[in-house]
């Protein structure tokens, strides 16, 4: 990338702010737009709280938690490497889907680092309206091989720096993240290329990534500066982006506007074979972004042209009045100085493929650079208990091996079996037709040993250029339930023109009832794997972690991120507790009633009952009445007319008994069995 090289060099210049928009048309009528904003402030000024172009809100947070270097990424969508070629900035300015944050903090101990990290994430969470505060211990890792400090740090500072890394794969990036992002810019989206940044277009992009990088830069012989670099990359589908904002619905066009392949024999007024991607679309800057550039930002370095476009020189481009074109000598790129007050727009007319001066793809697009590595990760298996992860890594280069660090952070409920880690290599172009493949299992015995705070990576013996030696080094930190996730770093080397399939199995655990999110049946997102491609001769190993990273500057590496995964966990039926309560209540009611009955009642067989007479109140009353009747008869027979007063008493008692009996009857009717 031509402009990339030119834009990364002026880091050392004392200029304080510069911005650049880099446009690159891609095949199938896509357009890559890379916005780059960079401002410097000298370290001494920064420490004196004199921020100038450096955003004060961010600067204060960094000072408070002792952050020496910070990288924040918001990303959405996926880069289609097969169609779009190599990534912008070699992938160093993009993150996995969601939000990714890593920073080097000044801390003496792990506890202090964790504490500062917590403060940092919470502060950034408020600043960027993102759920960064959910990056807790279970989502935080301390990568060993994957990340190197990009800035220049002195030896004594470096010794006390701790790297922490956290990802939120589920975070949906949207306009509420863009607004604070723009507020950090000196021109705040009011002037310059940042006026093009409209949430509607940015988040309608096929792929977009917002990045903030803060690092100290010490040019030789000059004072160290703290640099903040804000980058937005987006791939726009030109056809979709051209739709007016008031009418975004892709209604079918009127039939006569369809671009048809008229060579088809059946072509007629109502039959049209479409040729959508055969010809380049006509587009203009204000069409695809919905607005034009509102003049140059007055604070920007006047030497750097704010808008560049990478197309062959043979392509016609029209601009609005007042802009001056600077064509790069090598071809394939041209830049524009834009007027400071007027609006600016670019118009790229349609390149007709027919007629006298027919154009080809080569006239329209610069050739795409091939990416150093293709990576594709997917889940294997089905069911909710166990599964596998498969990563297909392809080295397209016909003659150069590629070495990289493959870094994965997995949630703790995804328990991987390291002994199932397998690599399978397939050489494809040299052995066309019959692809050799061989199985290489890595020993798992060391997995347990790696479960130590001490970084003791298992290093497989390196056998030079031997192709069987794919995984050179493993750093594995197993998960602890509810405490931390799995961290897996592999240093992998892929020989030229071959494909490596990396697989491992895992088992998922059942969470506690309250640990499930409200949308438990959606599944759980697993963060993207980070692949850091190492330049030759600069292979880091964990032994010289921290100190030996100086040679590994940002110029040396390129990055790649796979897509995220959606892991479905065994999900309980959340109405189950309710059902259980209902069921147990019913069972207890039934059992208790019956059991209590059995306990308090005396059971007698029906034939045994008759000899007793009758049980219950009624029987007793009847018995009493009978006795009374007998008694009364006896009395009457015995006494005759002798004693009168006693008889009266008895009569009274009898009367009472009679009353009682009546009442007893009434009450007892219901109960009698």
């Amino acid at each position, binding site marked *: 990338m031509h402009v990339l090289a030119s834009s990364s060099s002026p880091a050392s210049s004392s200029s304080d702010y510069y911005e650049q928009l880099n446009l690159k048309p891609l095949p*199938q009528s896509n357009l890559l737009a890379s916005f780059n904003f960079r401002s410097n402030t000298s370290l001494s000024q920064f420490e004196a709280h004199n921020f100038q172009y450096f955003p004060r809100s961010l600067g204060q947070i960094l000072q408070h938690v002792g952050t020496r270097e910070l990288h924040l990424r918001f990303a*959405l*969508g*996926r880069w*289609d490497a*097969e169609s779009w070629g190599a990534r912008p900035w070699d992938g160093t300015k993009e993150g996995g*889907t969601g939000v990714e944050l890593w920073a080097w903090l000044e801390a003496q101990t792990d506890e202090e680092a964790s504490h500062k990290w917590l403060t940092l994430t919470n502060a950034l969470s408020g600043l960027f309206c993102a759920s960064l505060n959910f990056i807790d211990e279970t989502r935080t890792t301390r990568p060993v091989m994957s990340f190197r400090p990009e800035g220049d740090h002195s030896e004594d500072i470096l010794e006390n720096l701790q790297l922490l890394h956290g990802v939120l794969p589920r975070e949906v990036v949207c306009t509420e993240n863009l607004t604070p992002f723009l507020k950090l810019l000196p021109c705040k989206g009011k002037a310059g290329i940042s006026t093009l940044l409209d949430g509607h277009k940015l*988040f*309608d*992009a*096929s792929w977009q990534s917002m990045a903030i990088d803060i690092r100290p830069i010490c040019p030789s012989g000059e004072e160290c500066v703290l640099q903040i670099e804000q980058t937005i990359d987006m791939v726009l*589908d030109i*056809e*979709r982006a051209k739709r007016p904002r008031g009418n975004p*619905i*892709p*209604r*079918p*066009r*009127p*039939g006569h506007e*369809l671009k*048809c392949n008229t060579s*088809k024999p*059946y072509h007629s007024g*109502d*039959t*049209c*074979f*479409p*040729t*959508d*991607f*055969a010809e380049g679309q006509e587009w203009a800057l204000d069409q695809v972004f919905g607005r034009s550039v509102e003049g140059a930002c007055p604070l920007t370095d006047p030497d750097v042209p704010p808008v560049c476009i990478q197309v062959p020189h043979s392509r016609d481009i029209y601009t609005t009045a007042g802009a001056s074109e600077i064509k790069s000598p090598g071809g394939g790129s041209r830049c524009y100085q834009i007027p400071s007050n007027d609006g600016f727009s670019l118009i790229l007319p349609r390149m007709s493929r027919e007629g006298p001066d027919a154009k080809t793809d080569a006239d329209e697009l610069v050739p795409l650079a091939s990416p150093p590595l293709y990576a594709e990760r*997917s*889940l*294997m*298996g*089905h069911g909710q208990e166990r599964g*596998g992860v*498969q990563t297909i890594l392809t080295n397209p280069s016909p003659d150069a091996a590629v070495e990289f660090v493959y870094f994965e952070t997995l949630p703790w409920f995804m328990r991987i079996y390291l002994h199932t880690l397998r690599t399978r290599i397939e050489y494809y172009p040299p052995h066309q037709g019959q692809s050799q493949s061989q199985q290489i299992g890595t020993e798992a015995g060391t997995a347990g040993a790696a479960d130590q705070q001490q970084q003791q990576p298992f290093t497989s013996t390196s056998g030079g250029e031997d192709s069987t030696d794919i995984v050179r080094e493993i750093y594995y930190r197993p998960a602890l339930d509810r405490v931390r996730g799995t961290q897996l770093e592999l240093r992998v080397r892929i020989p030229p023109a071959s494909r490596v399939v990396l697989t491992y199995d895992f088992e998922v655990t059942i969470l506690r009832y309250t640990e499930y999110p409200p*949308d*438990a*049946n*959606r*599944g759980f*997102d697993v963060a993207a794997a980070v692949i850091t491609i190492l330049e030759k001769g600069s292979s880091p190993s964990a032994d010289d972690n921290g100190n030996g990273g100086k040679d590994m500057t940002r110029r040396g590496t390129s990055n790649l991120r796979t*897509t*995220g*995964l*959606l892991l*479905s966990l065994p999900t309980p039926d959340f109405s189950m507790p309710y059902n259980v309560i209902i069921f147990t209540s019913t069972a207890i009611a*039934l059992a208790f*009633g*019956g059991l209590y*009955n*059995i306990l308090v009642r005396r*059971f007698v*067989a*029906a034939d045994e009952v008759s000899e007793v007479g009758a049980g219950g109140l009624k029987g007793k009353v009847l018995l009493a009445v009978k006795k009374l009747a007998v008694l009364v008869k006896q009395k009457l027979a015995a006494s005759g007319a002798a004693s009168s007063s006693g008889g009266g008493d008895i009569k009274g008692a009898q009367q009472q008994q009679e009353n009682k009996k009546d009442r007893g009857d009434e009450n007892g009717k219901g109960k009698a069995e």
Partner: protein
Amino acid sequence: MPGLLASALSMRRNGSSDRLLRTLPPYVSLLCIVVGVVWLFLLPLDGYSRRTYISENALLPGQVHTYFGGSDQHVFRAYRHEIDALANLTNTEVNDGLETILKGVGLKVGRQNYTYHSAGETYAGENVYALLPAPRGDATEAIVLVAPWRVGSGGERLNRGGLALSLALARYFKRWSLWSKDIVLVFPPDTRTGTQAWVDAYHDAHDPRLVSPLPLKSGALQGAVALDYPQEGDSGRFESVHIVYDGVNGQLPNLDLINSVVNIANGQGQGSTLQRMWKHRGAAYEDRLRTMLRGMVSQGLGHATGAHSAFIPYHVDAVTIQPVSGSNGGRGWHDEMGLGRLVEGVFRSLNNLLEHLHQSFFFYLLLSKDRFVSIGTYLPSAMLVAANFTIMAISLWVRSGYKEVGDVEEVEKKEADTNNNNSTTVGAANGDSKISNSGENGKDTTTATTGTAVTTTTASKKAERHIFLPLGLVVGSHLLGAVPLFIFNHTPSKLLTPVFTVFALANAALPHLVSHYILRSSLFVATRQRQFYRLLKSFSLLLLGMFLSALATLNFSLALLVGLLAAPLTFTPVEPSGSYSLPVKAVFALLLDVLSPPAVVAAAATAWRFFGGAGAGAGQVGVGAVLREAAFGWDVWGLYTPLIVWCVWWPAWLVGSVVVLSSGGGGSGESSGARMGKKKVL
């Protein structure tokens, strides 16, 4: 509860227990079956079924404007011309053509080869599929649109409308930026093998020797819609859509998906039909019952009913949409664009999903497009039928613990004693019998402590249970079920009909052979005892009841079907003589012969030829076709219906027949004359 206790007490006290134990269970079993069947016929009534409703709020079916139409129809016509041009080419050439079109639309294309072997035939093909990535998505979720190249049960019709529509829809979908899930378009060569290979490979459950892996993958599949739209002629107008939803092994998609399709079709003025009920009067009991029964037959057979069926075992909800012309013979006024809008609406609904479809029902019987019965309501039907076996089994087990002194031949008793003393039978049998004996003793003491005499009029005695031999025979017969399973799944399709005939004859003779030459031989002296037959039948029925009640939760219809066909096994006589006369025995033997699995399979095949399988193709008729289909299902789809038939039902039938034929003293030889002849020849 006290009432129950009291009646239990009175049963023990009254001394009528033996009589009740002997006479009651058959009636209870019969009651279970009758109630189960009546229950089933009550389901279509309003009081037992419910109106369908959308349970998942996120779906919002029919709430979006659909814009597919206008000049997209020009594109559709062009694609249909392209499909017509490919019509008579080979699978690979067709896929080349499709790949060119799909790449022209701007999609990524993958291809997959597969080969299946079943019943001596090879089914090979190549799938082509395309991936439309969600513009802002992350390859975590996907929706599938399937358009098989050839549709119909024999694969005889070119799916030209469905294919052209899928291509036009793909081009239309690409213009939208609202997709939150990837859209995968799959173009398998047929409905039977292609999707199965594709879905297996997508979930890494494929056999790598037969099915190649997929070069392109997306995330978790959230739903699938298959289009079956042959569209003869240029207009291809239709009135309503036929929703096919049965999956392999009777698994069903989430009811919300069907409801969404019905709802969206309704919103567009399109009718929807289920289970080939073209003229369904929504409220008519008869139509509801017929829809339900058709659904149950389809579920019970468990075969794939369309390209969508392969998805359902992987918990991917899927349906096939077939446009059908009007019920009155005339064509409707909806054209292919209307179908496209229906698919668009369904996809927009699926796109809305935040979680995997989980809210609504997975177990249901549909009565019409807007009424259904849920599992809680219909399950008792099959469970009662399954329970009848268990009840009889328990009663036989209890009775086998007693000897009825009144009519037991003394000779037998002596023989049993000597047998015990000599212990020529296996030692384990003695061990088992001792354990059961001690259990009996324990029971004795408890009854004694309750203080009532068990001495009763019929004078039954406690007896040891010799469970080893009957248990071994039952287990052995179930293992023997593997033999027909193996034979019918590995015989070349041409030989299936003769092999089946031979098997059917052998099968008819098998119970006779077993009962006469094995059980009556001097090897098994114990078999002369009535207890042996009771235990034999008890174990067999117990297993059958267990299997069927477990199966009822998985495949209700199959469990009910097998349960009803095996119902006579409950009532077969076990008495050596006495209450059952020879004609009764002969009737039972004949009934069992008629209801034997091979006879039922043959009858079903004949019925299929005459009534069902409309347009199934004249070439595929008879038992051979049914068996080939079953073998194909077993090999390709993982169909377990053959396993149930041969390893659950057939062993139960075999044991039941042996029990019938062996009972009735030595006089069983006179039963079922026609069979006897064959047996004597053998």
